[in-house]
């Protein structure tokens, strides 16, 4: 392609030889190598338009050289180099077709809601499982408070158990004098909650491939803790207040928990019931959808952590808490489930 290289080296080889082949094409490979290095280091923007036009030409020249070399040459170093160069070139030339900003935009506008929408069945199942867990423990604790100690560990409850006084329980909800922690520790608390919850969600997603069973167990367990707590507060006549305390961040957090479970369940279901596809293909398709959902879940948990750490501690009015919680729930539902134009195409 660039004939200028040939005459520089006088060859006493026969009219076709692999040495001649190499001497004639070597300049292209070197140019391609340099271009790829520049592309890798500085990105596509650093290339001039002339270099951009050269890129596919040099790529094809290299691939064609590889084909010829494989058929004619026994020079191992040459073959290895051409192979490595072609692989590198292929992934760069065919790799990224979109700018990062564009990808981000598309993710928030279309991909994230679409992924969440597509796991709606699993989301309902997981939500029912959480509800079932909550109802189980609620009814058990309500009938016999001793059950509470089986469900909620000592370190989790922090004194919020059936023996506690109404006054103490009220104080843990942020009413009364001893609002928990004071204001200075809020952001630390919020961050801790966020990282902890994210870790749990990732686990519940990752466990999904074991046919979704551990995922469902984990979500059921989450519901159990919730219901037991609820029963204690309701027993002391604080049910409504506790609801508000929970609702302000709980709508976001539980929604995220349900989605992470749904993502895990989607993978488990794809492995068990692959349908017409092969099991591997079904798993990888489910995995990609679930991956998108999981980015969303981590972002939702960040929001929930902020609401829990700041919103809940600063806003003590129960009605306002309910208001914010419902608003968040409405926002998420609208964002995910209102169909948009991209769906049709």
């Amino acid at each position, binding site marked *: 392609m660039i004939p200028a290289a040939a005459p520089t080296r006088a060859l006493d080889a026969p009219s076709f030889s*692999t040495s001649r082949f190499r*001497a004639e094409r070597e300049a292209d490979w070197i140019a391609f190598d340099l271009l790829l290095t520049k592309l890798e280091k500085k990105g596509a923007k650093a290339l001039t338009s002339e270099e951009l036009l050269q890129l596919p030409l040099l790529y094809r020249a290299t691939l064609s050289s590889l084909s010829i070399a494989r058929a004619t040459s026994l020079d*191992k170093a040459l073959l290895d180099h051409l192979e*490595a160069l072609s692989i590198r070139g292929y992934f760069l030339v*065919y790799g990224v077709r979109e700018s990062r900003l564009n990808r981000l935009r598309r993710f928030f506008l279309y991909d994230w809601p679409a992924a969440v929408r597509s796991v709606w069945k699993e989301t309902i199942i997981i939500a029912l499982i959480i509800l079932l867990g909550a109802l189980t423990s609620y009814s058990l604790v309500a009938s016999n408070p001793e059950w509470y100690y089986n469900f909620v560990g000592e370190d989790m409850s922090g004194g919020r158990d059936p023996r506690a006084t109404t006054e103490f329980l009220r104080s843990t909800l942020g009413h009364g004098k001893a609002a928990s922690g004071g204001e200075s520790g809020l952001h630390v608390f919020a961050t*801790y909650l966020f990282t902890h919850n994210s870790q749990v969600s990732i686990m519940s997603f990752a*466990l999904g*491939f074991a046919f979704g069973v551990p995922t469902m167990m984990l979500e059921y367990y989450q519901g159990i803790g919730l219901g037991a707590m609820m029963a204690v507060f309701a027993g002391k006549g604080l049910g409504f207040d506790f609801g508000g305390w929970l609702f302000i961040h709980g709508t976001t957090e539980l929604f995220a928990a349900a989605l992470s479970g749904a993502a895990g369940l989607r993978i488990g279901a794809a492995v068990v019931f692959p349908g017409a596809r092969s099991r591997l293909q079904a*798993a990888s398709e489910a995995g990609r959808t679930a991956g998108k959902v999981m980015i969303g879940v981590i972002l939702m948990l960040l929001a929930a952590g902020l609401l829990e750490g700041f919103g809940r501690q600063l806003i003590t009015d129960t009605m306002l808490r309910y208001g914010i919680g419902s608003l968040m729930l409405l926002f998420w539902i609208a964002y995910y489930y209102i169909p948009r134009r991209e769906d049709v195409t």
Partner: protein
Amino acid sequence: MSAAAAQANAKSRSARAKKIRQFVTPEGVDLELRIASSGLRFGALLVDLILIVLALVLFSLVMLWVGFASQSDITMVVWMLGAFLLRTFWFIGFELGSRAATPGKRLMGIRVVARNGGRLTADAVVARNLIRELELFLPLMMLSVGAAEDMVSGWTMLAGVLWSLTLSLFLLFNRDRMRMGDLIAGTWVVMAQRVKLDADIAIGTAGDAMIFSEAELAVYGIFELQELERVLRGNDPRAMREVADAIRAKIGRPVAEEDDVFLLSYYRQLKSRLERKLLFGKRREDKYASD
């Protein structure tokens, strides 16, 4: 003995072929991607973990220093968030780049590729790396929970650890060396090392000093040719002496010239002979194959 050696040669060739996966580009060329071995994968993981821990320690020290200086607990928040981001997004961030490899993978010369030959998408990278959380930490969790709380017997703990290890070591049990995460994300990890273009040793002035007869050249095949090329490029006098002596003994030539001159001439004439045969569709894999 030669039959055993021939068998061993054929075996190693087929083992290499088993690692190769067809990967046809739109231009119709098979790139013949090679699956990265489990050793390389483990090495890459180890390097990445060491780097993460180093970064974490450095970050903690800086945050500690800033925290003492400013007397505010906002540094605590930054530290917790930073540690979380580092742990979760180290792999995702690097694999989303144009080289689709973490520093550890780059060092080992491997990269992540979409199994269907398409573009490696962000959701696949996220899925394969969130599963890693499970693969890495489940065995550790089983161990620590069992040991700390003392609520399970040794045997139960062992069973738990073994169960979680089968998940973590999943890549040892399949041909494609896929992790659990690769399986779910539809990816695999292949060799992508860089190979420098070495000089062409088949041209130049010295090299036609000796002329070998057809019978003298007919004793070796492609495998031996490429081994000879390796020795010549290595340029180690002791190895060259050994190889030159072996060839001389085989073809019955006395020690008359310098080893490198002898080897180079022999290499060139053998290469051109085998390449000529290759053009006519005859590929002689090694010296045991018929000429």
